[in-house]
């Protein structure tokens, strides 16, 4: 596998009506990168992912994905050219069955094909509940379904916004396990925003720390994620 840049972000700023959240972010993602973005609440981690997906419009800066400018591209097109995005909440259609959810995700086609089969094999909880309405799934099952849905299309970059928040330890490790096997099969780069660092540590090879809309650390030493004092320094925002 040759190394190349998948995503390039250059001095990106964005925000909401009366609030600037990202204050100039520059970031290159390589196709073997598995990045964890950490930082205190409200530092702009989720907004960074949402801006890349053009769910939050960027004010200045450029985003390019494999040589294509995407900062003004509609979200659905960004997805179709190969960026998968797992929303933090409300990431399945609760009123529809699991099967309908998956078929929407695979581009309104019936569930077949090698890729779909493999993804479903990775999530047996989903495969066994195709007829259940998604709203009746438990939190862990729902999150598995959401991840399966994102992976129904070919992706070369996967953005995950707090995939295991609110899951029990066992559900979380199960989900992470599935993600690992998918990663080795489909070889995509990934960016993951998550608080429970110990759970995701085995999956990442690069660590980015954000604070107040800026990147303050970018390192490949992922062991730092488990270093309490190092984290304290960057992370805790109420030193009273």
């Amino acid at each position, binding site marked *: 596998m040759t190394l190349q840049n998948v995503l390039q972000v250059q001095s990106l700023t964005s925000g909401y009506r*009366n*609030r600037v959240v990202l204050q100039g972010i520059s970031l290159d993602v390589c196709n073997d990168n598995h990045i964890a973005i950490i930082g205190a*609440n*409200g530092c702009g981690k989720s907004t960074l992912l949402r801006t890349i997906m053009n769910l939050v419009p960027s004010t200045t800066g450029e985003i390019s994905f494999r040589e294509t400018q995407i900062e003004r591209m509609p979200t659905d097109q960004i997805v179709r050219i190969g960026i998968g995005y797992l929303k933090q909440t409300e990431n399945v259609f609760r009123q529809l069955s699991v099967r309908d959810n998956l078929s929407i995700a695979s581009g309104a086609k019936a569930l077949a094909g090698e890729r779909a089969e493999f993804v479903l094999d990775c999530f047996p909880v989903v495969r066994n509940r195709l007829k259940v309405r998604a709203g*009746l799934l*438990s*939190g862990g099952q729902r999150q598995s379904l959401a991840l399966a849905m994102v992976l129904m299309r070919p992706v070369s970059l996967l953005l995950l916004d707090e995939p295991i*928040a*609110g899951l*029990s*330890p066992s559900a979380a490790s199960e989900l992470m396990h599935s993600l690992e096997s998918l990663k080795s099969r489909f070889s995509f780069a990934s960016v993951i925003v998550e*608080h*429970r*660092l*110990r*759970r995701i540590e085995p999956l990442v090879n690069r660590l980015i720390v954000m604070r*107040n809309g800026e990147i303050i650390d970018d390192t490949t030493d992922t062991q730092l994620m*488990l270093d*309490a004092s190092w984290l304290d320094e960057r992370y*805790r*925002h*109420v*030193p*009273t």
Partner: protein
Amino acid sequence: MINSISPLDADNSGILVFKDLHKRFGDIAVLKGVSGKLVPGQISAFVGPNGAGKTTLFQLLTGELKPDRGSATLNGQNILGSSPYRLAGRGIGKLFQDVRAFPNLSILDNVIVAIVARQSYRDKPFDFGLVRNGRSQVLAKKAREYLSRVGFDANEEALAKNLSWGNQKLLALARLLAGEFRCVFLDEPIAGISTLMANRMVPLIRELAEAGVAVALIEHEITFVESLANDVIVMNEGVVIDSGSASEVLSHAETREICLGL
């Protein structure tokens, strides 16, 4: 490891006592028998992962939801099944997780609303007294006092929606002070605000407790809990798994695992 999994003794010494609360949504049990009490002058922190049932518990105790089973009393009188405004009239206040300042009212009006809502529920349910003229100067003065207590000192005519997130939280806190509640529920008071603002928030909450108010808060930020709370109640999957003084509970490895992911 946890050495004592015991719910707080639910005797009547607290101002707000709740016993054995159950709540399910459809086929998911969110609360499976939660008991505890809130004591005047004490800050009780509810910690635990998302989905542990903390917000649901708060909604039960502030009247926004009705429990399936269990009891809750304020000074010995039942509070379950009352609507939120009645409970507010009886001294239970709430800071919402998503703040909920009144966006198109001025900062001053936001606080005045809280003052008149409290007064008139007790004395006269319908009041046509002017807010801005004459006697209203008294109201405005009072409102300014509350605003200056939380640190607002300018722009009182600005609309709340134009404030930053942190300032909206401060405004909501001022509104809470203006309600002069005996028991307040704070749902993630410092989530999403800057360090500077959070540092301002802490002494205000402490002051509230020192004034004899029973404070309950939900918080994920453990440093914040350590610095503020007298009692910590750890919840997971709808039950209380640990409780006690802050330093004691937070030293338990499992609590750290559940709450911090560390």
